[in-house]
């Protein structure tokens, strides 16, 4: 087994959080986890199809970053996008319905698991090819700057958060976009979710410099390494990067050290990752860790946590019912949405 990187230490006391805010983060993480567990169940019961990539284990990244954004900011994801969509505010009903291929899905059943979109929530996608979302996110960030500086709209201070994996950081679009974002000081966060693996390719076998955050320096951009299993740490780093971006000070590369608790997709037998590695990371479950934090700092009690979990369980059950009962798209609409006038 490859030597694990030492996780950066985070000074918890410096990060103040209100009980409401703490429970909001907790709720978002639990929502992500329960949603994905339900997806696995439905997939194995033959209710959903295609390649389905679950997010279990990485919740602290989605919640820590996206909950640090405003609702008019932009989020750009990958094929592992269910939980980013949920954090961005897309209702669980519409995400689940999309996975069921229903007309009520957030992409009207035309997209599927890897193509979640919601213009209402400024979710830019859902991109099934690795890396191709990064330029699109860059375009949204450019648009904010364009409105501000070319059109003189001082309220155009929206920030874009762009998520992708360790494997994707070896793709040209990553480097090209880091260059342009730094060159034009665009309001964007490049959030690398380094879960150590790109399907069966171990990160160290794919890259000459495994410490991805260091790649920011050559572009004159801040690069930050953070414990991606600690939502408070991710949140603190994200808040700072968002503030910089909003103030017109440009992009940040954030490398979150994290791990996926399931196979690459539900079709992956997951035979390459060692038991020891999996157990070491399971012990750092970001949800359990945050529960301990909330209790330790008297932000809630066991009852408060259970209330959240019960509420989310109900929401997931409702989402499932909604998805199951929703209609399929009409065959008459096969050609709808190819062009803007239809």
């Amino acid at each position, binding site marked *: 087994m490859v030597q694990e990187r030492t996780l950066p230490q985070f000074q918890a006391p410096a990060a103040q959080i209100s009980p409401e805010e703490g429970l909001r983060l907790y709720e978002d993480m639990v929502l992500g986890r329960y949603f994905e567990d339900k997806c696995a169940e439905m997939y194995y019961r033959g209710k959903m199809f295609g390649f389905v990539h679950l997010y279990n284990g990485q919740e602290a990244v989605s919640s820590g970053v996206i909950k640090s954004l405003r609702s008019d900011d932009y989020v750009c994801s990958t094929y592992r996008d269910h939980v980013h969509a949920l954090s961005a505010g897309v209702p669980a009903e519409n995400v689940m319905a999309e996975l069921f291929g229903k007309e009520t899905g957030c992409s009207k059943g035309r997209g599927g698991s890897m193509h979640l979109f919601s213009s209402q929530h400024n979710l830019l996608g859902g991109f099934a090819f690795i890396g191709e979302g990064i330029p699109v996110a860059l*375009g949204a960030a450019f*648009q904010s700057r364009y409105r501000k500086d070319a059109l003189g709209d001082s309220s155009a201070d929206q920030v874009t958060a762009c998520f992708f994996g360790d494997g994707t950081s070896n793709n040209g679009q990553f480097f090209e976009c880091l260059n342009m974002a730094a060159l034009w000081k665009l309001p964007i966060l490049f959030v690398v979710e380094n879960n150590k693996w790109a399907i069966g390719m171990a990160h160290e076998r794919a890259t000459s410099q495994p410490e991805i955050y260091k790649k920011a320096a050559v572009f004159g951009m801040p690069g930050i390494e953070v414990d991606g299993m600690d939502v408070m740490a991710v949140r603190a780093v994200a808040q700072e990067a968002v503030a910089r971006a909003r103030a017109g000070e440009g992009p940040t590369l954030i490398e979150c050290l994290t791990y996926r608790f399931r196979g690459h997709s539900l079709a992956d037998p997951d035979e390459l990752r060692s038991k020891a590695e999996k157990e070491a990371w399971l012990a750092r479950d970001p949800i359990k860790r945050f529960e301990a934090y909330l209790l330790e700092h008297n932000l809630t009690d066991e009852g408060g946590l259970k209330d959240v979990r019960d509420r989310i369980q109900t929401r997931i059950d409702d989402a499932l019912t909604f998805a199951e009962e929703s209609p399929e798209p009409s065959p008459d609409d096969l050609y709808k949405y190819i062009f803007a*006038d239809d």
Partner: protein
Amino acid sequence: MAETLLFNALREAIDEEMGRDDTVFVLGEDVGVYGGSYKVTKDLYEKYGELRVLDTPIAENSFTGMAVGAAMTGLRPIIEGMNMGFLLLAFNQIANNAGMLRYTSGGNYKIPMVIRGPGGVGRQLGAEHSQRLEAYFQAVPGLKIVACSTPYNAKGLLKAAIRDDNPVLFFEHVLLYNLKEDLPNHEYIVPLDKAEIVRPGKDVTILTYSRMRHHVTQAVKGLEKKGIDPEVIDLISLKPLDFDTIGPSIKKTHRVIIVEECMKTGGIGAEIIASINDRYFDELDAPVVRLSSQDIPTPYNGKLETLTIVQPKQIEAAVEAMVALKV
């Protein structure tokens, strides 16, 4: 009326549209300070500033994706491909995101963008700079593909493309930038989806586009002297094809020759023939003939290059042979 070169007609279109709508912007390699490699964006940088005429690094796939993201969030980008061939590097963003994203998003986003620039076989530019990407891109759903051929249609079509809410691939031709024509002083738009009847006639329908329109026009001079009366149609829209114009012509002449600059295999003509068979097979008095470029990388040598693309004499001969066929 003002005599205008084709590259200036394009420039006027961009200038007018940028003046009319401040969400319209240009991006690409050397479009700004340098004014574009064929001067289509000359002086616009000075007029509109560095964000609206954005000089990008040489990163075709990424700046194309960036334009998609900007278009999704409300801007109207015009990408200049320094040479359309370079956009092979942007194939992914053009196909997956410009072309298909609206559909996969279930209509969540529209992508109003224009991807324009010089294509076609020039003068001894070698294989890589002599590409005709229209054939490669025609299978991508969600893209409109247009080829301009005169200063008049170049200006009016580009304005229409900029105003269209869909991604438009807009092909110019390296050898047509210096064509001259008197253009109206008043504003005008040429619809993207209408073919142009260049010359009405009754004996045979010649379907062509881009530079080959001018080879056809040359051939027609010889044919007229021989008493042959062909109908020449400039397709303008390569996707979707304008069968409202093509169809009636076939019903009139019952004979079709396609003259194209793309290669024969999997070309625009191949698609047209298949569509004609679907729709008008019973109208035909002869099999459709297509004159295309050779299926080879365009050679550098001038003589070989001439042999690679269709010449006016060949068009003349093909039309004569077809008209001579007894039904």
